[in-house]
Protein backbone atom coordinates (compact mmCIF):
# COMPACT_ATOMS: atom_id res chain seq x y z
CA UNK A 1 0.00 0.00 0.00
CA UNK A 2 3.00 2.29 -0.25
CA UNK A 3 2.87 5.05 -2.80
CA UNK A 4 6.20 5.14 -4.53
CA UNK A 5 8.00 5.40 -7.86
CA UNK A 6 5.86 2.59 -9.24
CA UNK A 7 3.24 5.29 -9.72
CA UNK A 8 5.49 7.22 -12.09
CA UNK A 9 6.61 4.04 -13.81
CA UNK A 10 3.02 3.00 -14.39
CA UNK A 11 2.17 6.44 -15.70
CA UNK A 12 5.04 6.26 -18.18
CA UNK A 13 4.18 2.71 -19.24
CA UNK A 14 0.53 3.69 -19.63
CA UNK A 15 1.47 6.68 -21.79
CA UNK A 16 3.72 4.57 -23.99
CA UNK A 17 1.08 1.90 -24.50
CA UNK A 18 -1.58 4.48 -25.32
CA UNK A 19 0.68 6.21 -27.82
CA UNK A 20 1.62 2.88 -29.38
CA UNK A 21 -2.03 1.97 -29.66
CA UNK A 22 -2.88 5.37 -31.10
CA UNK A 23 -0.09 5.27 -33.68
CA UNK A 24 0.19 1.66 -34.76
CA UNK A 25 -2.94 -0.21 -33.73
CA UNK A 26 -6.01 1.94 -34.06
CA UNK A 27 -5.57 3.62 -37.46
CA UNK A 28 -5.02 0.49 -39.58
CA UNK A 29 -7.84 -1.42 -37.91
CA UNK A 30 -10.42 1.34 -37.95
CA UNK A 31 -9.32 2.18 -41.50
CA UNK A 32 -9.85 -1.40 -42.56
CA UNK A 33 -13.23 -1.46 -40.81
CA UNK A 34 -14.32 1.76 -42.51
CA UNK A 35 -13.09 0.44 -45.86
CA UNK A 36 -14.99 -2.80 -45.38
CA UNK A 37 -18.10 -0.90 -44.37
CA UNK A 38 -17.81 1.13 -47.56
CA UNK A 39 -17.34 -1.99 -49.65
CA UNK A 40 -20.33 -3.71 -48.10
CA UNK A 41 -22.43 -0.61 -48.66
CA UNK A 42 -21.29 -0.52 -52.28
CA UNK A 43 -22.04 -4.21 -52.66
CA UNK A 44 -25.53 -3.76 -51.26
CA UNK A 45 -26.08 -0.78 -53.53
CA UNK A 46 -24.94 -2.80 -56.52
CA UNK A 47 -27.26 -5.64 -55.51
CA UNK A 48 -30.15 -3.17 -55.22
CA UNK A 49 -29.30 -1.69 -58.58
CA UNK A 50 -29.10 -5.13 -60.15
CA UNK A 51 -32.50 -6.00 -58.68
CA UNK A 52 -33.93 -2.78 -60.06
CA UNK A 53 -32.34 -3.47 -63.44
CA UNK A 54 -33.80 -6.95 -63.45
CA UNK A 55 -37.20 -5.53 -62.61
CA UNK A 56 -37.05 -2.99 -65.42
CA UNK A 57 -35.73 -5.61 -67.85
CA UNK A 58 -38.64 -7.84 -66.90
CA UNK A 59 -41.17 -5.10 -67.50
CA UNK A 60 -39.48 -4.26 -70.78
CA UNK A 61 -39.72 -7.87 -71.84
CA UNK A 62 -43.36 -7.84 -70.85
CA UNK A 63 -43.97 -4.73 -72.93
CA UNK A 64 -42.18 -6.12 -75.91
CA UNK A 65 -44.00 -9.39 -75.67
CA UNK A 66 -47.31 -7.56 -75.53
CA UNK A 67 -46.36 -5.48 -78.52
CA UNK A 68 -45.23 -8.51 -80.45
CA UNK A 69 -48.42 -10.32 -79.62
CA UNK A 70 -50.57 -7.46 -80.82
CA UNK A 71 -48.45 -7.20 -83.94
CA UNK A 72 -48.96 -10.86 -84.63
CA UNK A 73 -52.69 -10.54 -84.14
CA UNK A 74 -52.73 -7.62 -86.52
CA UNK A 75 -50.70 -9.51 -89.06
CA UNK A 76 -52.96 -12.53 -88.86
CA UNK A 77 -55.99 -10.33 -89.26
CA UNK A 78 -54.44 -8.63 -92.22
CA UNK A 79 -53.56 -11.95 -93.74
CA UNK A 80 -57.07 -13.21 -93.20
CA UNK A 81 -58.49 -10.13 -94.79
CA UNK A 82 -56.09 -10.36 -97.65
CA UNK A 83 -56.83 -14.02 -98.25
CA UNK A 84 -60.56 -13.44 -98.29
CA UNK A 85 -59.97 -10.52 -100.60
CA UNK A 86 -57.90 -12.72 -102.89
CA UNK A 87 -60.57 -15.38 -102.87
CA UNK A 88 -63.20 -12.80 -103.66
CA UNK A 89 -61.11 -11.34 -106.41
CA UNK A 90 -60.51 -14.78 -107.85
CA UNK A 91 -64.21 -15.51 -107.67
CA UNK A 92 -65.02 -12.24 -109.39
CA UNK A 93 -62.46 -12.89 -112.03
CA UNK A 94 -63.70 -16.43 -112.55
CA UNK A 95 -67.24 -15.21 -112.76
CA UNK A 96 -66.28 -12.56 -115.28
CA UNK A 97 -64.29 -15.05 -117.26
CA UNK A 98 -67.14 -17.48 -117.22
CA UNK A 99 -69.49 -14.80 -118.39
CA UNK A 100 -67.08 -13.80 -121.09
CA UNK A 101 -66.69 -17.38 -122.22
CA UNK A 102 -70.42 -17.82 -122.13
CA UNK A 103 -70.94 -14.65 -124.13
CA UNK A 104 -68.38 -15.60 -126.72
CA UNK A 105 -69.85 -19.06 -126.90
CA UNK A 106 -73.31 -17.61 -127.36
CA UNK A 107 -71.99 -15.22 -129.98
CA UNK A 108 -70.24 -18.12 -131.70
CA UNK A 109 -73.46 -20.13 -131.54
CA UNK A 110 -75.45 -17.25 -132.86
CA UNK A 111 -72.90 -16.69 -135.58
CA UNK A 112 -72.81 -20.39 -136.44
CA UNK A 113 -76.57 -20.48 -136.44
CA UNK A 114 -76.73 -17.47 -138.72
CA UNK A 115 -74.08 -18.98 -140.94
CA UNK A 116 -75.90 -22.28 -141.00
CA UNK A 117 -79.11 -20.51 -141.70
CA UNK A 118 -77.41 -18.59 -144.50
CA UNK A 119 -75.87 -21.68 -146.03
CA UNK A 120 -79.13 -23.53 -145.56
CA UNK A 121 -80.94 -20.74 -147.26
CA UNK A 122 -78.41 -20.79 -150.08
CA UNK A 123 -78.75 -24.53 -150.31
CA UNK A 124 -82.53 -24.28 -150.32
CA UNK A 125 -82.40 -21.64 -152.99
CA UNK A 126 -80.07 -23.83 -154.98
CA UNK A 127 -82.34 -26.80 -154.42
CA UNK A 128 -85.34 -24.72 -155.32
CA UNK A 129 -83.64 -23.67 -158.51
CA UNK A 130 -82.59 -27.20 -159.25
CA UNK A 131 -86.13 -28.30 -158.48
CA UNK A 132 -87.57 -25.60 -160.64
CA UNK A 133 -85.16 -26.45 -163.45
CA UNK A 134 -86.25 -30.02 -163.25
CA UNK A 135 -89.83 -28.96 -163.24
CA UNK A 136 -89.42 -26.48 -165.99
CA UNK A 137 -86.93 -28.55 -167.87
CA UNK A 138 -85.01 -25.68 -168.68
CA UNK A 139 -82.16 -23.89 -167.30
CA UNK A 140 -82.99 -21.04 -165.22
CA UNK A 141 -81.04 -18.16 -166.37
CA UNK A 142 -79.00 -17.18 -163.49
CA UNK A 143 -78.61 -13.67 -164.51
CA UNK A 144 -82.25 -13.24 -165.44
CA UNK A 145 -83.59 -14.68 -162.35
CA UNK A 146 -80.99 -13.39 -159.98
CA UNK A 147 -83.27 -10.82 -158.49
CA UNK A 148 -86.04 -13.36 -158.05
CA UNK A 149 -83.71 -15.80 -156.47
CA UNK A 150 -82.39 -13.22 -154.04
CA UNK A 151 -85.91 -12.31 -153.06
CA UNK A 152 -86.63 -15.98 -152.50
CA UNK A 153 -83.58 -16.45 -150.38
CA UNK A 154 -84.60 -13.41 -148.34
CA UNK A 155 -87.98 -14.93 -147.64
CA UNK A 156 -86.59 -18.24 -146.43
Amino acid at each position, binding site marked *: *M*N*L*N*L*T*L*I*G*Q*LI*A*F*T*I*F*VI*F*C*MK*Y*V*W*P*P*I*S*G*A*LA*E*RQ*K*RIAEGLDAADKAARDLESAKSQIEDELKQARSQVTELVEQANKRSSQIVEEAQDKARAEAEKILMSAQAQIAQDAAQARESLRADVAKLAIVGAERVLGATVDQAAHKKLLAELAEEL
Partner: protein
Amino acid sequence: MALQNPTPSEYIQHHLTNLTYGYHPENGWSFAHGAKEAAEMGFMAIHVDTMAWSVGLGILFCWLFRAGAKAAHAGVPTGVLNFVELMVEFVDKSVKETFHGKSNLIAPLALTICCWIFLMNLMDLVPVDLVPYLFMVSGVEYMKIVPTTDVNATLGMSIGVFLLIVIYSIKIKGVSGFVGELTLQPFGKWMIPFNFLLEGVGLIAKPISLALRLFGNLYAGELIFILIALLPFYLQWFLSVPWAIFHILVIVLQAFIFMMLTIVYLSMAHEHH
Protein backbone atom coordinates in the same frame (compact mmCIF):
# COMPACT_ATOMS: atom_id res chain seq x y z
CA MET B 1 10.98 -13.78 6.03
CA ALA B 2 11.45 -17.47 5.48
CA LEU B 3 8.04 -19.06 5.26
CA GLN B 4 8.40 -22.35 7.09
CA ASN B 5 4.95 -23.09 8.48
CA PRO B 6 3.82 -19.46 8.51
CA THR B 7 0.99 -18.27 10.67
CA PRO B 8 -2.11 -17.18 8.74
CA SER B 9 -1.33 -13.52 9.27
CA GLU B 10 2.25 -14.03 8.10
CA TYR B 11 0.95 -15.89 5.05
CA ILE B 12 -1.47 -13.10 4.16
CA GLN B 13 1.14 -10.46 4.82
CA HIS B 14 3.55 -12.28 2.54
CA HIS B 15 1.07 -12.57 -0.31
CA LEU B 16 0.17 -8.91 -0.10
CA THR B 17 3.73 -7.61 -0.16
CA ASN B 18 5.26 -6.42 -3.41
CA LEU B 19 8.77 -7.15 -4.51
CA THR B 20 10.19 -3.73 -3.74
CA TYR B 21 13.48 -2.30 -4.91
CA GLY B 22 14.43 1.10 -3.54
CA TYR B 23 16.63 3.32 -1.49
CA HIS B 24 16.66 2.23 2.13
CA PRO B 25 18.06 4.72 4.64
CA GLU B 26 20.35 2.07 6.11
CA ASN B 27 20.88 -0.49 3.35
CA GLY B 28 21.08 1.86 0.37
CA TRP B 29 19.66 0.68 -3.00
CA SER B 30 18.44 -2.85 -2.41
CA PHE B 31 15.46 -5.17 -2.43
CA ALA B 32 13.29 -4.73 0.64
CA HIS B 33 13.08 -7.71 2.98
CA GLY B 34 9.60 -7.47 4.37
CA ALA B 35 6.89 -4.89 4.42
CA LYS B 36 8.53 -2.85 7.12
CA GLU B 37 11.67 -2.16 5.11
CA ALA B 38 9.56 -1.41 2.06
CA ALA B 39 7.62 1.15 4.08
CA GLU B 40 10.85 2.70 5.30
CA MET B 41 11.98 3.24 1.73
CA GLY B 42 9.20 5.77 1.27
CA PHE B 43 8.65 7.16 -2.19
CA MET B 44 12.06 6.25 -3.58
CA ALA B 45 11.15 2.65 -4.26
CA ILE B 46 9.65 0.70 -7.09
CA HIS B 47 7.49 -2.40 -7.11
CA VAL B 48 9.43 -4.57 -9.50
CA ASP B 49 6.74 -7.23 -9.73
CA THR B 50 3.98 -4.74 -10.51
CA MET B 51 6.07 -3.04 -13.15
CA ALA B 52 7.26 -6.27 -14.74
CA TRP B 53 3.87 -7.93 -14.91
CA SER B 54 2.01 -4.84 -16.07
CA VAL B 55 4.57 -3.93 -18.71
CA GLY B 56 4.71 -7.55 -19.82
CA LEU B 57 0.95 -7.68 -20.15
CA GLY B 58 0.95 -4.30 -21.89
CA ILE B 59 3.45 -5.63 -24.40
CA LEU B 60 1.28 -8.71 -24.87
CA PHE B 61 -1.65 -6.41 -25.62
CA CYS B 62 0.41 -4.30 -28.04
CA TRP B 63 1.80 -7.37 -29.78
CA LEU B 64 -1.60 -9.00 -30.16
CA PHE B 65 -3.28 -5.90 -31.48
CA ARG B 66 -0.33 -4.95 -33.64
CA ALA B 67 -0.59 -8.40 -35.22
CA GLY B 68 -4.25 -7.67 -35.84
CA ALA B 69 -3.45 -4.24 -37.25
CA LYS B 70 -0.85 -5.68 -39.60
CA ALA B 71 -3.31 -8.28 -40.82
CA ALA B 72 -6.08 -5.72 -41.17
CA HIS B 73 -7.65 -5.54 -44.60
CA ALA B 74 -11.08 -4.82 -46.00
CA GLY B 75 -11.76 -8.39 -47.05
CA VAL B 76 -13.18 -11.23 -45.02
CA PRO B 77 -11.50 -11.17 -41.57
CA THR B 78 -9.99 -14.33 -40.12
CA GLY B 79 -8.27 -15.54 -36.98
CA VAL B 80 -6.76 -12.95 -34.68
CA LEU B 81 -8.13 -10.15 -36.83
CA ASN B 82 -11.66 -11.24 -35.95
CA PHE B 83 -10.99 -10.89 -32.25
CA VAL B 84 -9.11 -7.62 -32.60
CA GLU B 85 -11.85 -6.13 -34.75
CA LEU B 86 -14.47 -7.27 -32.28
CA MET B 87 -12.69 -5.40 -29.49
CA VAL B 88 -12.08 -2.34 -31.65
CA GLU B 89 -15.70 -2.18 -32.71
CA PHE B 90 -16.93 -2.66 -29.16
CA VAL B 91 -14.72 0.15 -27.89
CA ASP B 92 -15.51 2.34 -30.86
CA LYS B 93 -19.24 1.90 -30.23
CA SER B 94 -18.86 2.73 -26.54
CA VAL B 95 -16.85 5.83 -27.39
CA LYS B 96 -19.27 7.01 -30.05
CA GLU B 97 -22.26 6.57 -27.76
CA THR B 98 -20.73 8.75 -25.06
CA PHE B 99 -18.25 11.05 -26.68
CA HIS B 100 -19.58 13.28 -29.43
CA GLY B 101 -16.51 15.35 -30.24
CA LYS B 102 -13.78 14.42 -32.64
CA SER B 103 -10.60 13.00 -31.20
CA ASN B 104 -7.95 10.63 -32.44
CA LEU B 105 -6.85 9.86 -28.91
CA ILE B 106 -9.91 8.81 -26.98
CA ALA B 107 -10.80 5.63 -28.82
CA PRO B 108 -7.28 4.14 -28.74
CA LEU B 109 -6.97 5.29 -25.14
CA ALA B 110 -10.17 3.50 -24.25
CA LEU B 111 -9.04 0.38 -26.09
CA THR B 112 -5.71 0.36 -24.28
CA ILE B 113 -7.36 0.87 -20.89
CA CYS B 114 -9.96 -1.81 -21.48
CA CYS B 115 -7.57 -4.49 -22.72
CA TRP B 116 -4.66 -3.72 -20.47
CA ILE B 117 -6.72 -3.59 -17.29
CA PHE B 118 -8.53 -6.74 -18.33
CA LEU B 119 -5.24 -8.58 -18.81
CA MET B 120 -3.90 -7.33 -15.48
CA ASN B 121 -7.12 -8.31 -13.72
CA LEU B 122 -6.98 -11.68 -15.42
CA MET B 123 -3.84 -12.53 -13.44
CA ASP B 124 -6.14 -12.66 -10.43
CA LEU B 125 -7.48 -15.99 -11.68
CA VAL B 126 -4.05 -17.60 -11.55
CA PRO B 127 -3.94 -19.69 -8.37
CA VAL B 128 -2.65 -17.42 -5.61
CA ASP B 129 0.18 -19.67 -4.49
CA LEU B 130 1.44 -20.88 -7.84
CA VAL B 131 3.57 -18.02 -9.10
CA PRO B 132 4.79 -16.80 -5.67
CA TYR B 133 5.85 -20.37 -4.91
CA LEU B 134 7.74 -20.73 -8.19
CA PHE B 135 9.56 -17.47 -7.54
CA MET B 136 10.20 -18.42 -3.95
CA VAL B 137 11.87 -21.62 -5.15
CA SER B 138 14.05 -19.60 -7.50
CA GLY B 139 15.00 -17.24 -4.69
CA VAL B 140 12.71 -14.26 -5.11
CA GLU B 141 11.07 -13.53 -1.81
CA TYR B 142 7.93 -11.66 -2.86
CA MET B 143 5.87 -11.78 -5.99
CA LYS B 144 2.46 -10.19 -6.48
CA ILE B 145 1.31 -11.00 -9.96
CA VAL B 146 -1.84 -8.89 -10.15
CA PRO B 147 -0.69 -5.34 -10.92
CA THR B 148 -4.16 -3.87 -10.37
CA THR B 149 -4.06 -4.94 -6.71
CA ASP B 150 -1.26 -2.39 -6.35
CA VAL B 151 -2.69 1.07 -5.79
CA ASN B 152 0.34 2.55 -7.54
CA ALA B 153 -0.65 0.89 -10.80
CA THR B 154 -4.25 2.03 -10.73
CA LEU B 155 -3.34 5.49 -9.54
CA GLY B 156 -0.69 5.76 -12.24
CA MET B 157 -3.30 5.14 -14.90
CA SER B 158 -5.92 7.37 -13.32
CA ILE B 159 -3.39 10.21 -13.03
CA GLY B 160 -2.78 9.77 -16.75
CA VAL B 161 -6.49 10.14 -17.30
CA PHE B 162 -6.59 13.12 -14.96
CA LEU B 163 -3.83 14.87 -16.89
CA LEU B 164 -5.78 14.29 -20.09
CA ILE B 165 -8.89 15.77 -18.45
CA VAL B 166 -6.95 18.90 -17.52
CA ILE B 167 -5.22 19.13 -20.91
CA TYR B 168 -8.45 18.75 -22.84
CA SER B 169 -10.35 21.15 -20.59
CA ILE B 170 -7.73 23.81 -21.24
CA LYS B 171 -7.46 22.98 -24.93
CA ILE B 172 -11.20 23.17 -25.54
CA LYS B 173 -12.23 25.95 -23.16
CA GLY B 174 -8.98 27.86 -22.77
CA VAL B 175 -7.29 28.55 -19.45
CA SER B 176 -9.85 31.19 -18.51
CA GLY B 177 -12.73 28.91 -19.43
CA PHE B 178 -11.34 26.08 -17.34
CA VAL B 179 -10.61 28.34 -14.38
CA GLY B 180 -14.04 29.86 -14.75
CA GLU B 181 -15.58 26.44 -14.71
CA LEU B 182 -13.76 25.68 -11.48
CA THR B 183 -14.57 28.95 -9.73
CA LEU B 184 -17.72 30.58 -11.12
CA GLN B 185 -20.21 27.81 -10.57
CA PRO B 186 -22.48 26.74 -9.09
CA PHE B 187 -22.93 29.91 -7.01
CA GLY B 188 -21.69 32.83 -9.12
CA LYS B 189 -18.75 35.12 -8.65
CA TRP B 190 -19.41 36.19 -5.04
CA MET B 191 -18.73 32.72 -3.79
CA ILE B 192 -15.46 32.02 -5.61
CA PRO B 193 -13.59 30.27 -2.75
CA PHE B 194 -16.52 28.05 -1.98
CA ASN B 195 -17.09 27.24 -5.64
CA PHE B 196 -13.43 26.44 -6.08
CA LEU B 197 -13.46 24.11 -3.11
CA LEU B 198 -16.52 22.32 -4.43
CA GLU B 199 -15.37 21.99 -8.03
CA GLY B 200 -11.79 21.24 -7.00
CA VAL B 201 -12.92 18.34 -4.87
CA GLY B 202 -15.09 17.17 -7.75
CA LEU B 203 -12.14 17.29 -10.13
CA ILE B 204 -9.68 15.58 -7.78
CA ALA B 205 -12.25 12.96 -6.87
CA LYS B 206 -12.35 11.72 -10.47
CA PRO B 207 -8.87 10.13 -10.62
CA ILE B 208 -8.98 9.08 -6.97
CA SER B 209 -12.29 7.29 -7.32
CA LEU B 210 -11.18 5.78 -10.64
CA ALA B 211 -8.03 4.37 -9.07
CA LEU B 212 -9.51 3.26 -5.77
CA ARG B 213 -12.53 1.57 -7.33
CA LEU B 214 -10.37 -0.67 -9.46
CA PHE B 215 -7.80 -1.21 -6.73
CA GLY B 216 -10.41 -1.91 -4.07
CA ASN B 217 -12.30 -4.46 -6.12
CA LEU B 218 -9.23 -6.37 -7.18
CA TYR B 219 -7.52 -6.13 -3.82
CA ALA B 220 -10.60 -7.49 -2.08
CA GLY B 221 -10.89 -10.24 -4.65
CA GLU B 222 -7.26 -11.19 -4.20
CA LEU B 223 -7.60 -11.12 -0.43
CA ILE B 224 -10.54 -13.48 -0.55
CA PHE B 225 -8.59 -15.87 -2.76
CA ILE B 226 -5.77 -15.74 -0.20
CA LEU B 227 -8.20 -16.39 2.66
CA ILE B 228 -9.70 -19.31 0.78
CA ALA B 229 -6.18 -20.62 0.26
CA LEU B 230 -5.78 -20.78 4.04
CA LEU B 231 -8.52 -23.38 4.32
CA PRO B 232 -7.72 -27.09 4.35
CA PHE B 233 -7.05 -28.18 0.75
CA TYR B 234 -10.14 -30.44 0.54
CA LEU B 235 -12.41 -27.47 1.25
CA GLN B 236 -10.78 -24.92 -1.01
CA TRP B 237 -12.42 -25.88 -4.31
CA PHE B 238 -15.82 -25.50 -2.67
CA LEU B 239 -15.24 -21.76 -2.21
CA SER B 240 -12.56 -20.86 -4.72
CA VAL B 241 -14.43 -22.20 -7.74
CA PRO B 242 -17.61 -20.12 -7.18
CA TRP B 243 -15.51 -17.10 -6.25
CA ALA B 244 -13.35 -17.48 -9.36
CA ILE B 245 -16.43 -17.78 -11.55
CA PHE B 246 -17.90 -14.69 -9.92
CA HIS B 247 -14.56 -13.00 -10.32
CA ILE B 248 -14.64 -13.47 -14.08
CA LEU B 249 -17.53 -11.03 -14.04
CA VAL B 250 -15.67 -8.64 -11.74
CA ILE B 251 -12.50 -8.44 -13.80
CA VAL B 252 -14.36 -7.74 -17.01
CA LEU B 253 -16.71 -5.32 -15.34
CA GLN B 254 -13.94 -3.34 -13.65
CA ALA B 255 -12.01 -3.02 -16.91
CA PHE B 256 -15.18 -1.85 -18.63
CA ILE B 257 -16.06 0.62 -15.85
CA PHE B 258 -12.58 2.16 -15.91
CA MET B 259 -12.85 2.55 -19.66
CA MET B 260 -16.38 3.97 -19.63
CA LEU B 261 -15.62 6.45 -16.85
CA THR B 262 -12.52 7.62 -18.71
CA ILE B 263 -14.63 8.26 -21.80
CA VAL B 264 -17.28 10.02 -19.74
CA TYR B 265 -14.75 12.23 -17.95
CA LEU B 266 -13.03 13.16 -21.19
CA SER B 267 -16.31 13.89 -22.90
CA MET B 268 -17.23 16.12 -19.94
CA ALA B 269 -13.89 17.88 -20.41
CA HIS B 270 -14.89 18.54 -24.02
CA GLU B 271 -18.24 20.06 -23.18
CA HIS B 272 -19.05 23.59 -22.16
CA HIS B 273 -21.28 24.00 -19.21
